[in-house]
């Protein structure tokens, strides 16, 4: 029984938080108090470690659980500074005149949605507000579904609803196509070769938005949301390198470091990496959404992980000291 009590505490805490009236946001004073209590609890763990009482992984899990859930109910405002990579991405989008055709490649699935869906929603909202024509496709089967979810959400905004955007005229969803990077390669010569019909089974030639869109030379910008393979690396290697199209990307935090070489060589026109990239992208586009809420949880969890790294090194220091004493 004893070994499960951490889980009982966590589950009870989650149930209490779920049952509370929504939206529950505690005052800044309570938020600060909770943060101080969390910090003091970590200090207690550090002191216990220095005294030789090593903590188990369940304690780490408990602290991570609290650091992820509590910020959802806190009232904290933190400055979100737009990084150079995100600014480059936004600048490239801001330069597009009304009526520009933008290809949005949704190459991710639900597990990566917390990081990428806010970017998708901010992109869609920005594109629709600035009269950009959006052509959606996916190299991942779930991608076009994620695009539909983003569109359904942004179409509820009064400013966008008032525009009476029409499917097939202002945006189109071509769906998923198997073939990974070969799909991109084929699109270099013919879009319709890879996507003969859209998700509604409408022939390519009968979609007004796609009139005159033969290949990448008719596309002004590609925005790729990627969570792995196939994704941004393939878009850069084929669409940018072979066909010279401008590609900007939103990546998961895990993938973002691997595409940095393409940023410094200016092959990739901007990058929004992970949750922080998503929050910065929302700030840049002024489409504040979920990422600006989630980033607080991520901030807290990062601080807790750093605290546990310090505690882990304290444990290492204690074990060195003990072994030295034994040796003496």
């Amino acid at each position, binding site marked *: 029984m004893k070994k499960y009590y951490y889980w009982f505490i966590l589950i009870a805490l989650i149930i209490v938080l779920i049952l509370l009236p929504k939206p529950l946001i505690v005052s800044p004073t309570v938020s600060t108090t909770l943060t101080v209590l969390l910090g003091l609890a970590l200090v207690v763990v550090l002191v216990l470690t220095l005294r030789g009482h090593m903590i188990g992984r369940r304690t780490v899990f408990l602290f991570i659980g609290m650091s992820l859930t509590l910020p959802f109910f806190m009232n904290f405002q*933190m400055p979100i500074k737009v990084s150079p990579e995100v600014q480059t991405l936004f600048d490239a989008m801001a330069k597009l005149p009304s009526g520009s055709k933008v290809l949005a490649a949704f190459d991710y699935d639900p597990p990566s949605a917390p990081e990428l869906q806010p970017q998708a929603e901010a992109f869609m909202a920005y594109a629709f507000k600035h009269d950009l024509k959006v052509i959606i496709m996916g190299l991942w089967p779930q991608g076009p*579904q994620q695009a539909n*979810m983003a569109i*359904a959400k942004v179409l509820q905004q009064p400013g966008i609803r008032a525009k009476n955007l029409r499917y097939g005229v202002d945006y189109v969803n071509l769906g998923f196509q198997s*073939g990974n990077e070969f799909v991109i390669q*084929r699109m270099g010569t013919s879009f319709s070769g890879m996507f003969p019909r859209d998700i509604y089974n409408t022939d390519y030639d009968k979609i007004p938005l796609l009139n005159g869109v033969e290949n990448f030379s008719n596309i002004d910008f590609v925005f790729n949301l990627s969570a792995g393979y196939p994704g941004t690396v393939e878009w850069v290697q084929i669409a940018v390198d072979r066909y010279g199209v401008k590609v900007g990307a939103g990546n998961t935090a895990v993938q973002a470091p691997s595409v*940095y070489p393409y940023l410094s060589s200016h092959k990739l026109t901007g990058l929004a990496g992970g949750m922080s990239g998503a929050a910065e992208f929302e700030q840049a586009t002024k489409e504040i959404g979920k990422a600006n809420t989630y980033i607080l949880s991520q901030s807290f969890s990062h*601080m807790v992980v*750093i605290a546990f790294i310090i505690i*882990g090194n304290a444990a290492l220091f204690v074990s060195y000291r003990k072994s030295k004493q034994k040796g003496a």
Partner: protein
Amino acid sequence: MKREIPLIITFVAGVAFVLQYFIPHYPFSRFENIFSDWFAIVGAFAIWLGALSLMKLSLLNISKKSHDWPISLVIIICFLSIVIAGAIDGYHGLNNVPATSFRDPGTNFDWLYQNVYTPLSSTMFAILAFFVASASYRAFRARNTAATLLLFSAFFVMIGRVPVGDYLSGWLPERMQLSHWANWLMAFPNTAGQRAVMIGIALGTVSTSLRIMLGIERSHLEG
């Protein structure tokens, strides 16, 4: 001939791929389209093959009552549920004017996607946060110089990539702020390391491809 014919096919296909990449003009440009179409078709069949293989394996597990067979039952039920929901919605969608897709909001497929598939797969991925934290606690220890460098890099990137970094160091000059350090680490040491990995992978890919095309490497013909 059992070995020679596959080797000839491999060599011809490999050379054709190289030519179509470096000479994007007729007739080589046609190769590109043909190969891309073939690859998409093979990819589509691979999806079917994967699905059927999963079903076959799960049915075998159930019939043999092998270890964890109820999980196989869950796989089959989930697979059939989403396929049937998608097929029914898709069938109705084609008859609608204007046509609707099984992916549209409000369909059975969309309900399963949003309320079953998305939470389950997100939960699996979210568990990583707990394991990463536990692993960081155990692994990021200053045992030697290399480990200490890794430790400090992790510290600066973790704190500098979230707003709390600027919140804590906002009073410092711009170039001394934690986000600046994190950006520098990502833009220079990280890029240098990633480039080295990329170049290494590219050279490895070229040499392995040449070995396969020239028939030196024949492991793909075995089995």
